[in-house]
């Protein structure tokens, strides 16, 4: 037994050394101009849009207190226009990232709610992403934000082998070169406070037949897991006495009825307002206000932001 354990220990030690060496080596050697071999072998989509790096950099280098923190997926960072909010004296910052599933949102809030200390949180729900295990967003975060305890917790929650590899790679690389070290602040084109300015339209959306009916399917295990995280998000934010609003963006695609019902239940449980913006879809011009079937463009965002602001003002959120 003793011999077996000693051999096992030796094997694990060699494995850790080799694993670290492979991660460090492949992270340093470039595959092409943009990506390293490591990015390539783990399918790491660092190329994702959403300006993740800058929005988190700004969140940790704030010059002005934030009234509203918006968190969610790409639907959120294409729908909440900070300029419209600013006109109404509301200073918002978006920590929404591509494919951000509730499992990602929960751990991000755990870390950034106390750092940013907003007066209010808006969590934009994406029903389709309830079926995501959050790994896509996790890659994005590991590449663009400093590794933290919460990021490790997120990895443990996702619990998939390559999640640990990505996290470990981020840790090794950031130990070597801290992520914000020597960064010269520069606002990317089409970016403001986490929002992505994009006036692209899809003229076909105005003419083609669009199915926006409800899918009457049962919840998957992944959806149940993510719904638990939405419950955690509500409880966590409320436990810090921060008001929270749930929103859902107008979309031109099918969504799952049961998921929506469950979110209504969570909202009711925590006495949170759930603003389903789909009811304002009729006020939008599909071929002008949508980027694609699932996202608004900046024209649409301006309209929807106005609606959200009115809702916030009518709901007696105090600033």
């Amino acid at each position, binding site marked *: 037994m003793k011999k077996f354990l000693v051999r096992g220990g030796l094997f694990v030690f060699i494995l850790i050394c080799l694993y670290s060496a492979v991660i460090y080596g492949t992270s340093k050697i470039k595959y092409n101009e943009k990506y390293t071999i490591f990015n390539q072998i783990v399918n790491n989509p660092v190329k994702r849009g959403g300006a993740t790096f800058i929005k988190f950099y700004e969140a940790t280098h704030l010059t002005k207190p934030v009234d509203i923190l918006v968190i969610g997926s790409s639907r959120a960072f294409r729908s909440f226009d900070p300029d419209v909010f600013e006109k109404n004296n509301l200073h918002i910052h978006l920590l929404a990232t591509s494919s951000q599933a509730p499992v990602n949102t929960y751990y991000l809030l755990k870390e950034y709610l106390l750092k940013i200390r907003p007066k209010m949180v808006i969590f934009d729900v994406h029903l389709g992403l309830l079926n995501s295990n959050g790994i896509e967003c996790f890659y994005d975060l590991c590449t663009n934000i400093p590794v933290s305890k919460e990021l490790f917790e997120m990895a443990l929650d996702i619990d*998939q082998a390559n999640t640990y590899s990505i996290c470990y790679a981020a840790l090794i690389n950031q130990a070597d070169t801290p992520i914000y070290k020597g960064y010269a602040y520069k606002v990317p084109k089409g970016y403001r406070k986490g929002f992505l300015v994009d006036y692209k339209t899809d003229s076909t959306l105005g003419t083609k037949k669009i199915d926006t009916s409800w899918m009457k399917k049962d919840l998957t295990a992944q959806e149940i897991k993510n719904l638990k995280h939405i419950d955690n998000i509500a409880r966590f934010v409320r436990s810090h006495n921060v008001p929270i609003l749930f929103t859902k963006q107008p979309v031109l695609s099918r969504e799952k009825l049961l998921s929506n019902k469950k979110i209504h239940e969570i909202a009711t449980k925590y006495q949170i307002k759930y603003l389903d913006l789909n009811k304002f879809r009729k006020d939008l011009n599909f071929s002008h206000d949508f980027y694609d079937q699932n996202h608004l463009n900046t024209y649409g965002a301006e309209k929807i932001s106005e609606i959200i602001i009115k809702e916030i003002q009518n709901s007696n959120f105090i600033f």
Partner: protein
Amino acid sequence: MLFTSVKFAVFFILLFLLYWLLFNNKTKTQNVLLLVASYLFYGFWDFRFLGLLAGISLLNYFLGLAIGSSSRRMTRKTWLILGLVCNIGTLVTFKYFDFFLPGLQSLFSVFSIHLNLHSLGFIVPLGISFYTFLSISYIVDIYRKKLGPEKNVFYVLLSLSFFPIVLAGPINRPVSLLPQLKTPRDFDPVLASDGLRQFLWGLAVKMIIADNCAVYADKTFTDPSATGSTLFYGALFFSIQIYADFSSYSDMAIGISKLLGFRLIRNFNFPYFATDIADFWRRWHISLTTWFRDYLFLPLAYFLSGKIKKQKVLFIRSDLVIYILSILFTWSITGFWHGAAWTFIIWGLVHAFFLVMHQVFRKIKKSFLARHHLQKDLLAVAFERFFTLGMIVLAWVFFRSKTLPKAIDYLDRTFTLSLFSPPLGFPTKMIIPIFIFFTIEWAQRDKQHGLDFTDAPKTRFIRWAIYLFILLIIFFYQVKQQEFIYFKF
């Protein structure tokens, strides 16, 4: 807590150290630890059904005692029937009630009786099909006097909830597990090392092959516009996925058991290398097929042979008629065991048809091969293997499809001219891993598993290099972790 998760790794390492370091040579304490671990493991999935698991185990413990203590055949039979009704009744209530409901209502409406029953909306308890089958085999084996009734309730509880097998098999019957639980266990480094290797093989197959194949298979089975060739490869990828997924679970379960000093029944024997459909079923989910053989097929065939006295029935030999009837019944039940849907029943019946055809043409095929000296011809054997694989892949379409019309539509869209066009979105990166996987399986086909190095003259350096390489691939290659398919059953 999937076997592939870090949570399970932590759970098992703690258990392993306590089991062998603290409680070595203390069989009773080891068993208490195993029972606690088993209930913890099951409760981690859904604690609400722990009561059901314990209830079924206790019920069968008392039924076992009742059957075993009675000397009168009728009394024993009555207890057995009561046990079968309770076990099957539980399974039907939780798993099949909603499936039978519309049928029941229409049946009663024929007699102008309007049943006001509603869907129970039960969640199917994880592993219920497996532990009810273990329970049934326990009481039937006592009835058949293959096994004595267990006096100590503790052993029955453990043999029906043993954590490596409780969720998705292998269906390791109490008749083989109970004696092992009672025997003092010494740490056997050879067995433990082999267990580790088998676990590693299972882990690699699940995470590299099954989970990656699932992505393409899922896409094709839900894409209404996929071309014939895409659908063909989708079915092929699902065939690889389900084999890799389920055999890997069995490998991990057997590996874990070996690490704890137990030897479980082998569940897969490289089934895609089968030369005919009967051979396939001797190699696939062995613990289930032998269960159905021993508790359903053979008793039914025996019963029918007592009832059918004529030499021929409808110009067919009576032994063939008995075989056909028994096969059809057994396979429709086998299909239904997998899930409360017509797709599974049809899948079972498709296999029953293949088996009947095999039985009918077996002698003709044998004499044809002998006449042309093809019994050992490599090409002929390769053709047999591919032909068998083709039949299996075809049947999997019914198994994977959500509904029967969807399965028929899938096959209809596959066999079109677009079958000869290049497949869309084909995952070329999977070609090499799948090729390596089947090459290793082929090379190891006479062994217990892909990393079985028993009697292999490999030095430790080479073996460790192989393990390290596999682990590194696992850490980098997985796309999206999927739950084991057989958890649904």
